[in-house]
């Protein structure tokens, strides 16, 4: 083997070695970044759990009761007498309401009908 070939061989091996080392370093670098992200995610998860516990504590009957049902506060549970049951759907309620207070039914009419007709009541209506 002459010197030239030997040099080329050494150079090639060196370059590949450097590339390999660079990739290894990159892998470790990504691992560090991932570790950082994991730590951030864990911290957020821990904060979430703490918030959950605080919410549970604030929402608990013991805490709400201590605030709302203290002897100085005029708040009490609704007893049977305070509850009114409405046995109807919203649509039925609207229908019932209309039945109680009927409105004038508007009919489609021509200009002639409006002027010479007797069906509608002549009245001045406010401009809306």
């Amino acid at each position, binding site marked *: 083997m002459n010197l030239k070939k030997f040099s080329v061989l050494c150079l090639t091996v060196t370059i590949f070695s450097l590339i390999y080392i660079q990739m290894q370093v990159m892998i470790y670098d990504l691992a560090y970044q991932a570790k950082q992200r994991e730590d951030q995610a864990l911290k957020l998860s821990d904060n979430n759990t703490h918030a959950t516990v605080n919410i549970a504590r604030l929402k608990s009957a013991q805490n709400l009761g201590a605030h709302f049902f203290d002897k100085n506060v005029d708040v009490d549970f*609704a007893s049977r007498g305070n509850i009114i049951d409405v046995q109807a759907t919203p649509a039925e309620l609207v229908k019932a309401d209309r039945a109680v207070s009927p409105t004038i039914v508007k009919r489609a009419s021509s200009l002639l009908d409006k002027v010479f007709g007797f069906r509608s009541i002549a009245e001045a209506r406010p401009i809306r």
Partner: protein
Amino acid sequence: MYFRKRSLRFILLFIFFILFFGFFTLKLVLIQVFRSSYLNHLAQKQQTHVITLAPKRGTIYDRQFRPLALDIAAYSLYAAPRMMKPADIEKAIDVLPRTIGLDKDLLRERLTRDKGFVWLARKLSLDDMEKVLAFKLRGIHFMKESKRSYPGHEAAAHLVGFAGTDGHGLEGLELKFDKLLAGREGAAQILRDARQQDLLIEQALLKPQDGFDLILTIDDNIQYFVEQALAKGFQRHRAMSASVVVLNPRTGEVLALANRPTYDLNEFGKSHEDQRKNRAVCDMYEPGSVFKVVLTSAALEKGIVQETDKVFCENGAYRIVNHTLHDHHAHGTLTFREVVEQSSNIGVVKIAQKLGGPVFNDYAQRFGFGKRTGIDVPGEINGSLKSYGQWSKISIGSVPIGHEVGVTTIQLACAIAAIANDGILMKPYVVKEIRDKNGETIEKFSPHVVRQVIDPATAQRVKSILAGAIERGTGKLARIKNVAAAGKTGTAQKIVSGRYSHDHFYATFIGFAPVEDPKVAMAIMFDNPRGTYFGGTVCAPIFKEIAENVLKYLQAEEAVQSKKSHAAEESSR
């Protein structure tokens, strides 16, 4: 000559280089061939290590899925004294006591040890950790652990119990279901860098199995009503102890259970044994007149007596062998109904004598006395009910009126619940369901019928008599507005220094409401209330307060649930 000298030097140099390279070749062969496995192993040990992955402990919920016990992250403070200079130690001793309340002397002792690792404080909060980190103390570090948190503090303390510093249950349901709540540890092989910091590369992994969640029969709102009423009564009457159990009589579900004294589950380390005792299941006492429900039920079932039959109550004094039995108020002739309403001891004993000891004892056993109810909390005791063979000649004058017998509050609650439930005795239970972290049901617990104690027809008659006890009898302070309730009061002398005391009493009340369709049954016990000591004055008002609030709440809940199901039906159409 010159030529020879030159070739000699050359040869010597050549030999030197040969030896030099030969030495290194040998060394290389030694390392790469003979010692490779050992060195490999050493490198593996330095670069990787196995860490345990802690499972998440299961959460304990009430029946509405409100958390009663759950895990949060906690930060345990440790020091590496060997890595700390004297200035670092002094700074830590100056800062830590005033920041997180550590003892100065203890801190100094720990930081001056010749060790690489010492604990300083376990399971601190996030706030405390951030306060310490702000000081950037050298040699002081935090290790993340998990800690049990109880948002309700004292609520259902004796039922839920607590887990210790190592995360294992030590009391209550935390103890009883510790294996299910704890889960199973996992493991991972992690690569470390030159600074021994873990990298996120896992070469092998065993996934941890998180603990299962418990869903209880307890309702946090009902528990609140009970805790409030009990706390007020306990303070007012300055009793030694007290307990309340509220059941759903149809299913045996425990809706609430509270004891006094009590403690904050988040600070269990500051509590003492007396506060941690679950008295509702492990304290036994003579129940007094509440035990008359057994005689009432047995006598009506066996047809020994009718409600309107007349009983002469001896004007308040009745001789049994060599013992005189007294009534609290002297009565002449009462109907059987009135005997129970007015709680006449003499009237009850006379009926018991007609009924007979063996039959009475059989009914007492059928109601569950003298035996554990089987509730799924630790520490329950049997109580005490002598067999008829162990009765003395005067036992017929004691046992039917609630003496010479030991009961627990849970047994009393189950007995009155049986009457409310048309004579069917149900097994009480606290854990409704066990689920995994994905919400899948692992195990579900259903109501369990123990036995039919009395006929439904007899139960109706007993209900009517007990309703009268509240309307006209000793339980007037238990009356609930617009709701018919039924119940029985009890006042029993305590045994002090081997004799019945005239100064120390147990006050009890058992009852249920509404009479026509019972939703709640409850037993209340106060040990040694001061001032007034009657069941009718101490416990009956507490029953009224709890029952009123619970019934209103249950009504509102029913209305909300029916609206939800109605809305769901509408939307599915």
